[in-house]
């Protein structure tokens, strides 16, 4: 074989002289290249591996008959539909949890109080119970409205104009809980003609604003509205 002949000549030349060995290597490589070009096929030594596993099967039977474009459109449509369904499902799940936290219908029904205003004469206080707390309703006279509006409210401890505390000037509605420590103030008492807290001596004026004493804030105004001319709904 020419390869072994080349290697033996290489060994002999290498023992004598180095440049000769380079020539021998080059000739050896050339001979290898020629040898491979003349043997292009591979024959397996195993008889069973003759044809069935070394050849790629024909998949054309399973290939789609439609155009690749329509297959693409279909797969994007399916992915989009799945996304749509997931979005709806996720929204419904989150909403169920959130609705679970909101007040139920019976709680909401008890959270409102309706009062007929026709029975409250001018210049009188009415105390009603709303969500376990007293609510003061004062039918103010024209003089009291004038007094509440004329005060220089900018200099008060909790500055607030009377217009921010009432929806209709003749009706003053507020929570009857002293903002100091939660006592119930006494109506038509105190130095300012409004409310007076007997616990620690806070004086509120005719708009329910703190004027004197330890309380830090004005009496709180709840949410309320007038559905008709002479009814009041608190809550």
């Amino acid at each position, binding site marked *: 074989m020419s390869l072994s002949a080349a290697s033996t000549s290489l060994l002999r030349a290498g023992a004598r002289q180095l440049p000769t060995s380079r020539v021998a290597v080059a000739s050896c490589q050339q001979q290898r290249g020629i040898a491979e070009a003349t043997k292009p096929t591979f024959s397996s030594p195993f008889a069973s591996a003759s044809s069935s596993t070394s050849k790629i099967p024909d998949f054309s039977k399973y290939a789609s008959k439609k155009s690749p474009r329509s297959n693409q*459109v279909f797969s*994007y449509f399916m992915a989009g539909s799945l996304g749509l369904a997931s979005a709806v499902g996720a929204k419904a799940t989150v909403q169920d949890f959130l609705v679970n936290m909101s007040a139920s219908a019976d709680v909401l029904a008890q959270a409102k109080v309706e009062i007929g205003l026709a029975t409250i004469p001018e210049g009188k206080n009415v105390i009603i119970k709303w969500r376990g707390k007293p609510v003061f309703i004062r039918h103010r006279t024209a003089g009291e409205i004038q007094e509440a509006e004329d005060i220089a409210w900018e200099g008060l401890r909790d500055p607030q104009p009377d217009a921010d505390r009432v929806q209709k000037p003749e009706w003053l509605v507020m929570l009857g809980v002293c903002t100091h420590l939660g006592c119930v103030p006494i109506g038509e008492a105190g130095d300012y003609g409004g409310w007076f807290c007997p616990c620690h001596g806070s004086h509120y004026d005719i708009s329910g604003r703190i004027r004197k004493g330890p309380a830090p804030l004005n009496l709180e105004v709840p949410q309320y509205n007038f559905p008709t001319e002479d009814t009041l709904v608190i809550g």
Partner: protein
Amino acid sequence: MSPLPTDSPEKGLIRRNAVYLTTIFAGAFAFEIAYDTGSNKIWDAMNRGRQWKDIKQRYMVAAEEDDE
């Protein structure tokens, strides 16, 4: 993804990802409304005459007559 041809009818919806996602969410919104409305209608049809809103009228009228 290889670009879709411009003559495809769906190219407007799935060519740009932003448009694709917007379509999905808008579709989800519409689908939810349709689904809820449809299922409520089916439920009401199956329980016609048995729900409070169906029989409410009788009792509310009676209560008003009692007041008067």
